[in-house]
């Protein structure tokens, strides 16, 4: 085991690691649901980047990257989108309910 060369993969790997920290911080500390959802997506982006770096380093057999982690990222991105859409729907519905309870619908 030796230190990785400073190349694109390492650079994006470190970025992924930093993004995970940033996203986690936001998920834990933000109070608003929209902001937490954004933090979740930032964190997700970092995780996917790490998969991407693993794929890049696993390039071989004539492929520019290991196709398995790349395929996992595609699945992951779609699932994360669905989660975001479901959460947004829930947030909007909750806000509508709160508005109705406030009496007046104007903002």
């Amino acid at each position, binding site marked *: 085991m030796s230190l990785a060369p400073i190349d694109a993969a390492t650079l994006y790997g470190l970025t992924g690691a930093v993004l*995970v920290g940033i*996203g986690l911080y936001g*998920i834990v500390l933000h109070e608003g*649901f929209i902001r*937490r*959802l954004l933090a*979740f997506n930032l*964190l*997700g982006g970092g*995780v996917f980047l*790490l*998969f991407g*770096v*693993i794929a890049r*380093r*696993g390039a071989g057999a004539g492929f520019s990257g290991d196709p*398995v*982690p790349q395929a*996992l990222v595609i*699945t*992951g991105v779609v*699932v*994360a989108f*669905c*989660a975001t859409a*479901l*959460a947004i729907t*829930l*947030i909007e*519905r*909750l806000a509508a*309910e*709160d508005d109705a*309870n406030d009496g007046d619908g104007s903002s």
Partner: protein
Amino acid sequence: MTPGLMATTPGGLLLVLAVVVPVIGILALWLVRWRAIEWVAIATLAINLVVSLATLQAVRASDASLVYLVGGWMPPLGLALRADGIAAVMMVMTGAIVAVTALYARGQFGFDPHGPERRRPMVFWTMLLAITGALNLIFVGEDLFNLYVALELLTFAAVPLVSLDGSRDTLAAALRYLVFALAGSVLYLLGVAVVYGAYGTLDLVVLAEMRGADGALLLAIALMTAGLIAKTALFPLHLWLPPAHAGAPAAASAILSALVVKGSFFLILGLWFDLLPPGLGAIGANGLGMLGAGAVIVGSVLALRQERLKLLVAYSTVAQIGYLFLVFPLATGSEAASPFASLAWTGGVLQLLAHAFAKAAMFMAAGLVYEAIGHDRIAGFKGLGRIAPITVLTMTLASVSLMGLPPSGGFSAKWLMLSAALGEGAWWWAVVILAGGLLAAGYVFRILVPAFSTPEAPAERKYPVAPVRECAALVLAVIAILIGFLPLAPWPLLAIGRIAQVSP
């Protein structure tokens, strides 16, 4: 690589059916006529129960895991499904509880076969089937990413059940649950990435053979465990659970509390006992045990302070989940040949089973109480025994198991864990188990004492309840008691096919 482990076994197709049958049920549900949806769902769940029983029988008969290589592709390239003894037991537990819940929920949520299509029944039955399929996949999945998809499936199915009622509070509870669950999933996925980067495979069996004591594996397991703990609602990440489980309709609460939180727990079990090199996990196992102990105490104390039955039962779930995590220090510390042959392992599985049946019965009973008297404030329970005798009997039997009085599944579980703790000289865990039992007695007697007392004025039953629904809840409570008649010794069944055993 052990060749026998990596080929489809006879009966392996059962595992595919366990995953695919509920999915086909969901698709059918949205395409058949409105008046047929209950029958489609119940038929699907009946088939599912048969499949899970057949799986258990096949595992017992062959004394080995069932394996299916999906598409004929061998891991690590392809995905394998695998049911060992404990997975088969979990499948049967799930199959039985969802099937009984279906009988309990039939005709509920304003279902009118002759009226127009309604939201609540459509959503409830869809999500019930989805939870069944997702849990089956969690039990038989062998690939960490495949399991991630299963976890997401479980989350997306569970969240709409929380907000089925549609009120503001349940929407808020559902949203909070979703945020916890999503954060948990993404942490889990992060661990998956680290595992793939270090080993180039996500298959649990292959990984168990390759595992070394390296930092990447430890980091990955720490991340995945943290994510799964958030989904299991282990103290101190339990805050989302009580409002979510108490706000859902009774049939949904039963499934959420009895089964859904067990899915992520099952994965933690797998990670710790199959992937972590023996000896390395000792500190972590004690840490999990301490969180579990915290959950037992804090959950029980909070349950004691609740005014509403459903919230009390929900806090009781927080406490009972705590017991499950005592397995980690107890089974790791055991001197048995393998952790799976230890008293604590069997005790933990019994706790999981007994809690599932007792808690499902308890939530269903809570729903019936609400229907009978129009509220679930404990202060107003006087004379309940007269108006709803079967329901009160159900609550009593379930309470016996939750407290851990003999004879009941809860008693056997706690007795085995207690013996394990004392056998290892770890008396502090024994103190936690006993204290938890006493606190549980405290909170269940708060319900039962008024229920059995005679009211000043004769109480009246407000609404009629179908006897079949009362019986459904009773059946689950009786099963929780019957589990107590199983022999108080390690089950050989639970050790069948455990990965750590077959690979030296």
